[in-house]
């Protein structure tokens, strides 16, 4: 995998150059208007909708031959979606891939932000199922667009109000709405709200691609991202109170893993790269989450 050896039948990174240009224009517009959902002519990709077609198109449009790609799915490098997207770009772009959040220059993610702080020369690409945070509250697209245009976001708080009225606290735990740069309310994709503070002032560029819904939006580096809340019910981060069973981390987001048919369970870091890094040896055997992907 040293020299780029993309399969000759494909253009570099699968998409044709015109399409990539179209997507880049959408990305530029998205970066210029932080949090605004830019429509784009989403293409059919060789994978089903809901498997990251939006993220894949954004990645394809920004990928260069020197980039190092990391793909995570719910924080893990070794789940089906992550492995197949990584292989897809290995094959069609011949780029170097990694599981290390430090080495990567482009990280495509489904529903997590890596625990390792991101840097200014990295781009985080999110896969987004439903880009509009208002969608479940207001089904009409014409109406939600108008609401975004006029910054009419009272409805967003209606949802949070309902949470408190019903559960006594804001029970939204993922896809927690944020306000970007004091203007647009944005759906951070279904990341746990634990990750919300990581988006605020992040030095890395964050791009969001929704393939089925045909929208791209972005958070430029060092942009203010505020999670919506009430004065008397402020935003709170949530993580399961405990340490990772593998690496002992008490600051990472944990997944609950059921280990047998009798309900035995363990809590481990959802970010496998972070967990491996803390344990020192990524090849360490015996841990179900630690299996390194075969190149």
């Amino acid at each position, binding site marked *: 995998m040293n020299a780029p050896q993309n399969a000759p039948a494909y253009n570099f990174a699968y998409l044709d150059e015109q399409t990539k240009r179209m997507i880049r224009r959408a990305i530029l517009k998205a970066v210029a208007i932080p949090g605004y959902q830019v429509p784009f002519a989403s293409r059919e990709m060789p994978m089903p909708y809901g498997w990251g077609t939006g993220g894949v198109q954004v990645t394809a449009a920004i990928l260069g031959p020197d980039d190092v790609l990391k793909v995570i799915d719910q924080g893990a490098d070794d789940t089906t979606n992550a492995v197949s997207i990584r292989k897809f770009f290995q094959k069609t772009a011949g780029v170097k891939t990694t599981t290390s959040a430090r080495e990567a220059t482009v990280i495509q993610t489904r529903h997590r932000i890596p625990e390792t702080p991101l840097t200014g020369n990295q781009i985080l690409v999110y896969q987004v199922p439903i880009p509009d945070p208002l969608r479940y509250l207001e089904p009409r697209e014409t109406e939600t667009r108008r609401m975004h245009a006029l910054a009419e976001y*009272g*409805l967003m*708080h209606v949802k949070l109000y309902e949470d408190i*009225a*019903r559960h006594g606290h804001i029970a939204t735990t993922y896809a927690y709405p944020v306000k970007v740069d004091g203007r647009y309310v944005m759906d951070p994709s279904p990341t746990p709200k634990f990750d919300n503070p990581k988006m605020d002032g992040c030095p890395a560029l964050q791009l969001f691609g929704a393939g089925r819904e045909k929208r791209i939006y972005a958070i430029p580096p060092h942009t203010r991202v505020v999670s919506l809340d009430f004065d008397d019910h402020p935003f709170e981060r949530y993580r399961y109170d405990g340490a990772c069973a593998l690496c002992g981390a008490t600051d990472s987001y944990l997944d609950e893993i059921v280990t047998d048919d009798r309900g035995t369970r363990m809590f481990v870091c959802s970010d496998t790269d972070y967990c491996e890094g803390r344990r020192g040896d990524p090849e360490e055997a015996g841990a179900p989450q630690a299996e390194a992907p075969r190149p």
Partner: protein
Amino acid sequence: MNLAANESEPLLIGEGLTKSFGRQIGCRDVSFCLHEGEVMAVVGESGSGKTTLLRLLSMQTESDAGRVLYRMRDGVTRDLATLGEAELRFLARTDWGFVHQDPALGLRMAVSGGANVGERLMAVGWRHYGNIRDAAADWLSRVEIDIARIDDRPATYSGGMRQRLQIARNLVTQPRIVLMDEPTGGLDVSVQARLLDLLRSLVAVLKLSAVIVTHDLAVARLLSHRIMVMKGGEVIESGLTDQVLDDPREPYTQLLVASILQP
């Protein structure tokens, strides 16, 4: 009425409002003015252009000719057509209320009663849950909805409760004008009576101006100071409610008045 100089200006003025839908006339050359604290009823049979007029007034439909003037809170009377959409929508959720005949159109059926009342407050920037909830509870009690139902969805409310909830939702931001489209339509008589009582006291206490569209002359007599009778899209008679209903001049109005069933 004892009004200050500026307040003697009308709050809402319709000037030559005309709207047609193709060859079908919605309403033609309707003019009126409405003062602060005044309630005007618009009566007429189905298809006479009452609802079209209401939609023109609330800028939900664009008029073919004529204009709607509104005296803003700063005392300046402005043509609503010159306002931007953001300003109009802001007016619509602060200064104005719109009560639909079908409460399902005016409510969010999937969120609780409390959230329905609180929505307008949150839309104008309230960000304190406790305060929003207190205001919602206060308004629910003012429209005689049991506070224990605050977290129930309006889908579980009866028709009368829904209508009262819709009224509370509209009044929570203390609007100056409420437009009502058949507010008592589809309710049974005893529920209607209580709703009318409620509306009458709210209008009096809050010094609300209101335009009430109704085909029910009893509702008009009970609630309104003035009345406009419409037929075929035009106003055929207008004046003080008692005067018009007791001594109708136009044959059509006479017919309407004569059609009231006497129990």
